[in-house]
């Protein structure tokens, strides 16, 4: 019974932390859904460990405790794959944005008709102009 209390406590803490983060809007859209599902699974397995034994019987795996560990590692791998896919997508976006930014900057220089270079070599615009350009204040 003590083991069940320990695992129950840990799972409630983990699930609580995830719930808190989702509620605080630190996790976005589909990520929030994924993590809520993870929190649910942790709660279920942690508070009712017999579920694991039942799962072992259903799947005919002799040593049932390996089941959640195996599934967990599998899920982590899938998650990491998804992260790398996302990172590649983001890298593509960043590269294209940088290119577009540089091209537009060149066009601004051309439109101004000056030989003034963009970037750090150009004289900064007068400070008084900045708020008006940015449309703030």
């Amino acid at each position, binding site marked *: 019974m003590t083991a069940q209390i320990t695992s129950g406590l840990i799972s409630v803490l983990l699930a609580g932390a995830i719930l808190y983060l989702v509620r605080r809007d630190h996790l976005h859209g589909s990520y929030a859904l994924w993590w809520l599902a993870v929190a649910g699974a942790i709660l279920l397995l942690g508070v009712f460990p017999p579920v694991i034994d039942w799962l072992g019987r259903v799947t005919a795996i002799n040593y049932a405790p390996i089941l959640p560990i195996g599934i967990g590692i599998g899920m982590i791998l899938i998650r990491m794959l998804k992260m790398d896919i996302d990172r590649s997508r983001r890298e593509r976006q960043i590269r294209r944005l940088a290119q577009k930014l540089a*091209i537009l900057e060149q066009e601004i220089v051309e439109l101004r008709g000056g030989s003034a270079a963009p970037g750090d070599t150009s004289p900064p615009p007068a400070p008084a102009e900045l708020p008006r350009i940015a449309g703030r204040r």
Partner: protein
Amino acid sequence: MAEVVRGVIAATGADVLVVSDASEDDTARLARSAGAAVVELPCRLGAWGAAQTGMRYARRHRYTTVLTLDADGQHHPQELPSLLAEQRRTGASVVIGTYSERLSAAKRLASRYFHLLTGIGVQDFTSGLRVYDRHAVRVLASRHASLLDYQDLGVLMLLRKNGLTLRELPTVMSPRSQGGSRVFSSWRMVARYMLHTTVLCFAQIGTGRRARLATTGAAA
């Protein structure tokens, strides 16, 4: 730098664009004073990221032909007219200026290996001295080309996948005036590059042949 820009203008009369890959020296100022338009990238995107910026600039400004050459003086602007003539003569989408005398043993071996792997028989596949036509520029300016790192086999495979034709033309080049080849500088870099490109080949293998079959099928 300024010499190269002036050389290109003198040899071809073309509009010149210099892409500065976040360089901090006065490349941009020198190039501008020599009569080139200059695009300055806000962060380093590498050789291909910079070249692709040029492709996107070309599309935006509706240029139909793009010539690329390195600004370090290894490519001679005088060679450009013959590359253009070769393209006009053969109707190829891409003409690559190669300099076979410069090829080291390692590079020859690499090119033979990649020929086996991809079926692309370009000797000097890292040469940045190239002519691209409108179709090639459209393909290379697209999102599909944005995750490439070098102006090399990845680019050529993508072009072939889209059914475009490649030609090689022997040219004369100088040794680089500043720095050596970024890729073929040390054995570790070569190994890294070979592995990287091999993976790229495996990702692309077969797709070119299927695409070609599809186009002949459509024509028949």
